[in-house]
């Protein structure tokens, strides 16, 4: 028979105002197993906790019920107090008679509150009688991190972790790290050159002895759990043997063919053996197998690159290879992309060459871009005399499926207007906007500078239509401040299109077992208090894969996530809450419903062997490192062979029966 103590808290008047706590304590004495009750003014205070500890010790209690506030408030407090008094912390349960009773039933006669409190206490006592001792789960930690995405957030995180002395594997899908930031010309609000500030970091990451770079690679699968992940990485065939390449660039120089350069939004050309941009890191070229005649036509053709390559590192038959790495933490920084112009038929997106995205404009303005930094429009290479910028293109637009604000467009459009003015002095920019959102440091001043010093004309309204007239683009929209419909001709139209998750973001999330929102942005564990963690332990987030953010925030998040990883790595082993599922191997039928249902792939198959070591059958086994204790498997199991510690069937049954 258990020896249960029930402690009823008055919480000043918070509970006692509507609940007769003395009566609750008194009547709780009659509950089976209860040997001691206490009615106390403030249980969570130090004297209160002290009281609990003393009574546990003096009465030899083995289980405790605290009838007080929500377990979300003080479950930890009282479990710790119980532990200090020598109990297993999981022998302490909370009966929530404040948030769920005294505060919501303001009956001064205390009849209702007292009755309900008694019920709640009784249910909790019945539950706690079935509580078993639970021990924290300990798992070892592999002190090596995987960073997915080599944009600025990923680079920052990788450098921070590496600087602290831990190994980092940095996986980048593209041939070079740098991400979207490498495409930008200047950055707001300081107007420093994006590549000038980013390239040193790229080089540092590439040369850091603790960082292992996998470019042109993708994460194929992630298995395991916090501290113990096994990652499979696909290294796509570059057709160039990396170990031999000296990055001399001879092959690129001699390659006779070109194709549109994706890095320049296909506005410029590149060779078929190429590095995407001059500052690429690593500067190892890859062969574009979609276009190279070696692959698309007769195998005999060309091969110039192989001929000119000194170290003989061209390998036309190279295949994708796989590497497996063991890591203790995964940091996801996969970034964003922007909605393409083809989503805007009303603006002639895809039809008119001179309707481009903001990111395309960055390439036009970038010194390393297709025009060498001169603003020349894509259709005919002329310098546009008038540029119309359309903000909120796709953002805040439910008809395009994006209700959110893309956060960075107000600022970068102001920057674009400035860059344009700096490069085309006689040019005029018009900016259609809905609201100007510049909450960052020095952002408002930057925006006003665009208006007051750089001559940008801001029109408050949306553009409804862009079409062709007399060979020019005609922009039709509204200026709601003057209450007019406005129409103007433009030589170039720049859409500040919505920031959207990467294609494939959802796929990756499924492989990682992390959740995402309706758009495909990854969910934080808590949007305010745990902004760079996911609900899956050991997986962290940084940058625009969480939502649209600017460079300073991306970098901050990269560092923040790195600090989380470092905190994890500061432990030799981890202990975690023991609320996990467990399987009774004797009765498991191996139907694998639990395996199918488990959102975390925590169910493994374990062989049952006879003494000779022959496999008799397989049964389910819970990987305690992976299991997070949701209980989906328990409900799926027909024979109730699987149960959830801390929320066992017996505990819930007892609570129901105590109604």
């Amino acid at each position, binding site marked *: 028979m258990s020896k249960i103590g029930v402690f009823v808290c008055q919480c000043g008047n918070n509970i006692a105002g509507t609940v007769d706590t003395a009566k609750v304590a008194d009547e709780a004495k009659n509950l089976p197993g209860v040997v001691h009750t206490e009615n106390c003014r403030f249980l969570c205070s130090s004297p209160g906790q002290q009281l609990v500890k003393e009574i546990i010790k003096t009465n030899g209690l083995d289980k405790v019920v605290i009838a007080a506030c929500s377990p979300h408030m003080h479950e930890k407090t009282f479990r710790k107090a119980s532990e200090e008094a020598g109990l297993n912390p999981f022998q302490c349960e909370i009966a929530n008679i404040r*948030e769920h009773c005294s505060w919501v039933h303001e009956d001064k006669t205390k009849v209702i509150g007292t009755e309900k409190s008694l019920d709640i206490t009784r249910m909790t006592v019945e539950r706690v009688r079935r509580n078993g001792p639970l021990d924290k789960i300990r798992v070892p930690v592999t002190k090596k991190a995987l960073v997915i995405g080599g944009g600025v957030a990923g680079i920052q995180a990788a450098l921070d972790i590496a600087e602290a002395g831990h190994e980092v594997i940095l996986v980048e899908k593209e041939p070079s790290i740098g991400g979207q930031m490498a495409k930008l010309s200047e950055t707001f609000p300081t107007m420093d050159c994006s590549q000038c500030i980013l390239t040193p970091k790229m080089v540092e990451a590439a040369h850091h002895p603790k960082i292992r770079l996998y470019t042109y690679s993708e994460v194929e699968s992630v298995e395991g759990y916090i501290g113990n992940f096994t990652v499979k990485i696909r290294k796509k065939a570059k057709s160039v043997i990396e170990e031999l390449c000296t990055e001399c660039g001879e092959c690129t120089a001699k390659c006779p063919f070109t194709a549109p350069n994706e890095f320049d939004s296909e506005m410029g050309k590149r060779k078929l053996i190429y590095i995407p941009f001059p500052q690429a890191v690593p500067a190892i070229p890859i062969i574009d197998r979609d276009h190279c005649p070696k692959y698309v036509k007769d195998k005999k053709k060309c091969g110039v690159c192989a001929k000119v390559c000194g170290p003989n590192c061209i390998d036309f038959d190279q295949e994708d290879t796989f590497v497996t790495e063991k890591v203790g933490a995964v940091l996801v920084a996969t970034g964003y992309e922007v909605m393409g112009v083809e989503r805007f038929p009303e603006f002639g997106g895809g039809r008119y060459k001179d309707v481009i995205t903001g990111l395309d404009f960055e390439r036009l303005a970038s010194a390393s871009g297709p025009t060498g930094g001169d603003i020349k429009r894509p259709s005919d290479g002329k310098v546009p005399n008038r540029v119309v910028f359309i903000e909120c293109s796709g953002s805040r637009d439910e008809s395009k499926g994006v209700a959110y604000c893309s956060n960075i467009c107000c600022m970068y459009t102001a920057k674009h207007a400035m860059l344009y003015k700096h490069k085309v002095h006689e040019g005029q920019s018009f900016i259609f906007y809905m609201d100007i959102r510049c909450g960052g440091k020095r952002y408002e001043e930057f925006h006003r500078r665009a208006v007051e010093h750089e001559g940008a004309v801001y029109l408050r309204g949306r553009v409804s239509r862009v079409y062709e007239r007399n060979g020019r683009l005609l922009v039709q929209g509204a200026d709601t401040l003057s209450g007019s419909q406005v129409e103007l001709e433009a030589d170039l139209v720049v859409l500040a299109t919505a920031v959207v998750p990467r294609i494939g973001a959802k796929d990756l999330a499924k492989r990682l077992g992390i959740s995402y929102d309706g758009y495909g942005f990854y969910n934080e564990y808590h949007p305010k208090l745990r902004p760079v963690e996911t609900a899956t332990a050991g997986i962290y987030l940084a940058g625009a894969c969480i939502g649209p953010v600017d460079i300073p925030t991306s970098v901050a998040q990269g560092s923040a996530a790195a600090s989380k990883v470092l905190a994890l790595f500061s432990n030799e082993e981890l202990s975690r809450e023991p609320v996990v599922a467990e399987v009774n191997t004797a009765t498991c039928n191996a139907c694998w419903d639990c395996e199918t249902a488990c959102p*975390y792939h925590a169910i493994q198959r374990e062989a049952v062997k006879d003494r000779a070591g022959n496999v008799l059958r397989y049964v389910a086994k819970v990987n305690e490192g992976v299991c997070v204790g949701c209980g989906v498997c328990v409900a799926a199991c027909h024979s109730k062979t699987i149960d959830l510690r801390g929320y066992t069937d017996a505990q819930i049954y007892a609570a129901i029966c105590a109604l």
Partner: protein
Amino acid sequence: MSWEPKIVAFVCNWCTYAGADLAGVTRTQYRPNVRLIRVPCTGRVDPLFIIKAFEQGADGVLISGCHPGDCHYISGNLHAKRRWIFFKGLTDFVGIEPERIQYAWVSASEANKWAKMVDQATETIRGLGPFTKYHALKGTGTAANGGACPLLVWSEAWQPGIPDEVPLPEDAPFVPALREKARELLEKGEVKVVIGYGWAKRQRRIVPVFITEPGDVSRLVFNPLCVNNLSVYLPRKQGDIAKLGKPAIVAKGCDIKTITVLLQEEQIGRDGIVILGVSCSGVIYRQELWAGKAAPDLLAPKCIGCDVQTPRLADHVVGEPVARSVEQQGPSEVQRQIEALDRKSPGERWDFWAEHFDRCIKCYACSQVCPLCYCDRCITEKNNPQWVETSAHPQGNFSWNLVRAIHLAGRCTYCGECDRVCPANIPLNLINRKLAVVSEEAFDYRSGYDEKAHPPMVVYHPDDKENFIR
């Protein structure tokens, strides 16, 4: 004191529990009739909880968790939704007023929604009155009740076999081929036992036979009396048959549907059995009623609307393909009865089922004969906690029948064996069929057709319907 509704709420720790906390913090007042049971996730909520709550005198149950997409455990609430769709289909069908079981998404910030929901639920349930009828079974079937066991009543007229004067049906034309195949398999040692149909040694009726010697293959027959679903002998719980070695099984198209589910759930390996598929144009439901010919009204319910006359998935098929006969066109009597029940009020449905479940004697024949009830230890055999009351009073009758149905939901291939063997003549076909309809309507899933698919209860789709969730 006047009667007050008693409502149990199963709420997830992260959203609704926190939402209810917030209601407290903001002092949002609501009715005191609800008692919360905290679970980590709505995915943890087993239909057993709800059944038990009613058994314990609850008048209503609320189940509430995070909105889709907000689940703390990625998809626990979506798994829960799947389960609810089935369970709601079942509870509606047996006539539990839908208002008594309410499902909701309440986030941690929706204190008002929570308060409003509790108030509304309390008032609607107050309007419905106490849920006493859950306990109103008399237990006419139990010996303890002094009532006549329906089995005994029925057995007076029960014929162990077909009367001598009635001519027996002829063998199907492919029987020689079937025997030849069986002999070949046994002789080559490909299988150790052939599970098939044969005449009982002393009675005029068809029984399962287990042929282990090539010389015995002549015992194998096939005719319209071969109604049994022999796949019940395949799963592990039939240890003595498994001990004989690799089996070959004579299977009709419908039996193969069950085998498909067993494959899905990995109870057998595809390489571990040889399936001898037989073409079938319908079998008689109760062979003792055989009167010389396969009259349409004797056909097994599963034969109506059958689309597997020619077996799929079989290693060897004997017999020519047959088309669906006129008698096999639907809708069947079972479907008609389901539709008739659906049209009735919940109260009338309840009365219908109460009358039937009242007779249940918890003999578990339904479970024993079911090829998919293969658990080594049935939930009824688990006593800590004892979710289903197994003692000789009617307390657990509803629970057992609901649990049996929900455990088979989305899996049952409607072979009808449980209904056929029930000594109390409880129309289990109706429940099984109804849940198959739920599965088809909600998930476009028919059990027994795809051995690669997962049972619908343990997977989910984000677009699963949720029009019943508040």
